[in-house]
């Protein structure tokens, strides 16, 4: 990670991009595959194009390879306009989804194929092929035919062949699609390793979000011929810019509501912020307004100080054991941000990282299931919602709880299975609390 944070040419105004898409549109008949797309890709990047099938990611890659020409707009590689350059004249190589190994040639000859098309000396070709064989650990298979080796080895041959000519840019079209999961994970790391060793710019097309997140320095999420968001994997995951991106990358809970500014800097659900910092010992209920107080607040004060915040149902003070358990998870809300009104029957959600200029807008709150905590007793968290467990999906390492909140909103919470299944204390039909911090989710406009 440390290395990746250092490598950020897209934030450096002095860097000039290797690849520039400038208002590129590509149409196939009536169908618009790429819609007025502008994007820069920098040298030595590992750039992932991620999207569902038909989103235009493969078309984008094929345009880089020279197999398609843009209907309008230009693509530049290293400052050179590529629109009329055929594939065989580009310093770009592609690793095909089907690998496209020549079945009539040996592994050695497959790798040498591109080099033999140049005026490279025989000895130099041999040296380069051997170097590639070594890089991809295929020395033993040099004389075999492609059908005599396994899928994973074929994939490495395809990679070696496309790297043999030392291209400026390597395109990878769903390179790991044909491999099983274990092999795919190993190969992902191999790819990253090779990318680092060779210093080549990689552009990878994939529909597998995990793969994109693992290998890429930046991920572009595409939909219907447009790039929706380009960012580092962590930003894409933690701060998606639309519900589409949030939904496409991983699992997400989406809650729609209207936002308002938070009235006070004090955490709303916690009675005494000072005490929170010191790990609350006594939780005596603070004075509650009586009917008159409520009336006065609602009718007179609310335009000035904001809406009255319904104190949520109070449970009896926690026992010492419960307190000890919750101490570790003790969280406190930061100042500022927004409140999300989304249901009459549930408390507002505190989003302290919300953009305060959005006051009054209708937004969607997105939160990842693994950012939710689920417990049978009311937890000490800025946000805690009550509901009932409808379903539990046991996935081995984690379990996903489907909780129906009061009012019917379904929410997914994911918890690591730290205990054995038999000792799980939450089960179907249990009344539970779903809690999360004030910065766990994001508010999205669309």
């Amino acid at each position: 990670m440390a290395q990746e944070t250092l490598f950020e040419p897209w934030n450096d105004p002095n860097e000039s991009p290797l690849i520039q898409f400038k208002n590129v549109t590509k149409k196939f008949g009536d169908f618009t595959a790429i819609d007025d797309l502008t994007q820069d890709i920098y040298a030595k990047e590992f750039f992932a194009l991620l999207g569902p099938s038909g989103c235009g990611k493969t078309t984008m890659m094929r345009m880089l390879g020279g197999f398609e020409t843009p209907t309008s707009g230009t693509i530049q590689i290293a400052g050179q306009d590529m629109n009329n350059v055929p594939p065989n004249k580009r310093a770009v190589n592609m690793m095909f989804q089907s690998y496209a190994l020549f079945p009539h040639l040996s592994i050695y000859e497959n790798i040498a194929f591109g080099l033999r098309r140049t005026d490279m000396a025989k000895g130099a070709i041999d040296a380069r092929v051997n170097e590639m064989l070594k890089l991809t650990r295929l020395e033993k298979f040099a004389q075999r035919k492609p059908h005599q080796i396994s899928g994973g080895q074929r994939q490495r041959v395809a990679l070696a062949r496309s790297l043999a000519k030392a291209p400026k840019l390597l395109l990878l079209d769903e390179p790991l699609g044909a491999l099983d999961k274990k092999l795919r994970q190993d190969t992902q790391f191999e790819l990253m390793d090779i990318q680092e060793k060779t210093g080549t710019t990689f552009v990878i097309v994939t529909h597998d979000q995990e793969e994109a997140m693992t290998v890429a320095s930046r991920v572009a999420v595409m939909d219907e011929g447009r790039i929706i968001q380009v960012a580092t994997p962590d930003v894409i995951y933690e701060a998606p810019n639309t519900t589409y991106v949030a939904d496409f990358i991983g699992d997400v809970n989406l809650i729609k509501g209207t936002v308002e500014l938070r009235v006070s800097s004090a955490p709303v659900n916690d009675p005494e912020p000072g005490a929170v910092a010191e790990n609350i010992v006594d939780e005596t209920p603070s004075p509650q307004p009586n009917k008159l107080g409520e009336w006065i607040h609602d009718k007179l004060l609310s335009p000035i100080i904001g809406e009255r915040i319904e104190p949520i149902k109070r449970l009896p003070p926690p026992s010492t054991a419960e307190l000890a358990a919750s101490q570790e998870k003790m969280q406190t809300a930061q100042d500022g941000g927004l409140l999300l009104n989304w249901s009459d029957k549930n408390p507002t959600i505190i989003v302290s990282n919300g953009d305060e200029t959005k006051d009054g807008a209708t937004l969607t709150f997105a939160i990842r299931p693994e950012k939710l905590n689920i417990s049978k007793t009311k937890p000490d968290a800025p946000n805690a919602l009550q509901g009932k467990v409808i379903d539990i999906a046991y996935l081995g390492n984690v379990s996903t709880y489907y909780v129906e909140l009061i009012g019917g909103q379904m929410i997914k919470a994911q918890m690591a299975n730290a205990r054995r299944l038999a000792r799980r204390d939450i089960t179907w039909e249990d009344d539970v609390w779903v809690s999360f911090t004030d910065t766990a989710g994001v508010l999205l406009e669309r």
Partner: protein
Amino acid sequence: MRRFSLIAVPYIWLLALFLIPFLIVLKISLSDAALAIPPYAPQLDFAGGWGAVKAFFADLDFENFEFLTTDDLYWKAYLSSLKIALISTGFTLLIGYPIAYSMARAAPEWRPTLLMLVILPFWTSFLIRVYAWMGILSNEGLLNQFLLWSGLISEPLTILNTNTAVYIGIVYTYLPFMILPIYSALEKMDDSLLEAAEDLGCSRTSAFWLVTVPLSKTGIIAGCLLVFIPTLGEFVIPSLLGGSQTLMIGKVLWEEFFNNRDWPVASAVAIILLLILIIPIILFQRNEQKQREAEGQ
């Protein structure tokens, strides 16, 4: 037992329809011509007992094969047949490959139609199609009429009853046998292989020679053998379209059987023809097996 009977069926078939007739022909080729019915001697006479069988085998000899070497008609006919078969196979390949290639490149919805068009001639009798060529190629035929009308020639061309007519007939007749295996090899080819070749620096032309042609090799070999093998012994086309100077072993064979009524010599000619054909047939089988192995992977 069940398995055995299953395997037995094709073997009995081969035994009854290939091996036994072959042995009969072989036996006739070792006999002497005779004015009798059937026109050769000796006849196998089991009624005569062991002595008769021994006498029968004593009468068999290689006389007819020796005769084939004394008359240069025969080896000239073999050579000429080989030449005609080779040249027409070459032409069939030259014409068939582009057709198969463009069929394989055509839009998928067109391919079944194109394929049917290739097979369509088989719906008409082979003899009628060859006769139709006589109508086209004769001095007063459609081709000459058209050329005269268009002013390209002032005298009708003599095509019928020449080797040219034989080549035309053979190429026309056997073209589908060349197109179909090449088409099936090309159709299976993954287009991304050509893209990969271009990506690695090939021009379109060199990608064709370096990728497409090697990958359709099995189809080319199968097609060539499917054309070459029957052409070598072809009789109908040279006798209908060819002239007196068209020398082909099929015609010689026919004349020995029906004009000279010399069954033993004719059988000897047939045996030699078979021996010549065994080489390409074995090659064909090897090719098929190789292809199956490659696909089996």
